[in-house]
């Protein structure tokens, strides 16, 4: 493997340590936020896709990315940029990320959105489909509040977002 590829691989691994500040079980990589990572000489450029535009965690994420990549000691210049295109969609969350969300008590975004725009969410605790939506809007822009009628726990789910909307 070429030197540059080794560096990029190490950088991507380092980004596994950058967690969503509000869901600390999942990395920005598994959230599907990392669109592009490229090393060139001693410069590394990272392009990130914001989940929701008004998300106040974006600046924290940027700083954490810079800090983690800085720790590797192989880059003199670290450029982190948020880009809007392509837009982040909830199907970018990885399989591993879906499991990590559940561990945190957050249901992963539903896979499929039917034509009516309805979505069905399984309880992250007991797996029941017998759940109701309490509030489409949750404590952060990307989450909704639901209730499981089987195990009687309130829980949150990541909102599905798709370009079909």
């Amino acid at each position: 493997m070429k030197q540059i590829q080794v560096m990029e691989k190490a950088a991507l691994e380092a980004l596994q340590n950058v967690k969503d500040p509000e869901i600390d079980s999942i990395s920005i990589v598994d959230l599907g936020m990392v669109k592009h990572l490229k090393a060139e000489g001693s410069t590394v450029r990272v392009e990130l896709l914001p989940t929701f535009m008004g998300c106040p965690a974006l600046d924290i994420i940027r700083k954490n990315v810079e800090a983690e990549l800085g720790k590797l000691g192989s880059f003199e210049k670290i450029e982190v940029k948020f880009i809007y295109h392509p837009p982040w969609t909830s199907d970018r969350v990885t399989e591993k990320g879906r499991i990590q969300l559940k561990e945190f008590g957050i249901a992963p975004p539903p896979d499929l959105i039917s034509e009516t725009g309805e979505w069905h969410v399984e309880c992250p605790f007991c797996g029941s489909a017998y759940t109701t939506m309490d509030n489409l809007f949750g404590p952060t822009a990307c989450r909704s509040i639901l209730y499981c009628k089987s195990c009687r726990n309130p829980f949150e789910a990541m909102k599905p977002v798709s370009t079909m909307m």
Partner: protein
Amino acid sequence: MNKPDYKPFDPVIKSALTALLYQLADDDFILAYRGSEWLGLAPHIEEDVAFSSISQDTMGHAAMFYQLLEDLGEGNVDSLAHGREASERKNAVLLEMVNGPGHYLSTAQYDWAFAVVRNYFYVQAKKIRMDSLKNSSYQPLADVALKVNMELYYHLLHWKTWFVQLIQAGGEARQRMEAAIKKVLVDFEGVLTLGPLGYEIAKHGLIETEERLKQRWLYMMKPVLESVNLSVSESDFAMKNGNGRKGEHTADLDAALSTLSEVYNVNPAASW
């Protein structure tokens, strides 16, 4: 890099483009601010969570539009948002109006019917704009529109639900909703207009014509309004309190700007 290469524009196209971007940015910015004033005062706690989340998204949209202006050399995002006087603002007057009498810190007597109607009618108009902007001749704007549109889906669903339920509740709720609809419509032309450069904006394919967007709004709203025995026609639209696209504004905007830019004016370099 993926950063689009901003080639020097024909000055005519550039002035049409910036005119449109100022409208989009200023509309979202001031309505998000009005939404934030409701925090802690919404009818119930779930609504408090929802409305503040929507306002946060909306402020995020304003930030993106200001970013596009910054990229075109109009100044930095913070100064565009906080450092411009009322006469330089291009938002529709309807969106700057106070939520109701009183102040959010003490004696607020805000009008929830007005909040629901203003937001529902505006978000529907914004949705139509974003759908049209997805085909904008200015690609960076088309990219942003696609992103905004995805979040808007939930906003529209939210306000439509409130609108239909309150009107169908009858009694005082319906009366107050009908009063709010009147109040919103007499300034709604100010939301729908693309301003003095509207013709140029459409001519250069930045967005479709004002007339087309307006007809689409009426078309989209018709079934919803009919389902609750209401009708709205083009002749109901007016600009009673001025044309914000021309920089005409009310004292409500001056008051809002002095509050929201207080920190910025103390220290423009403050970190947020």
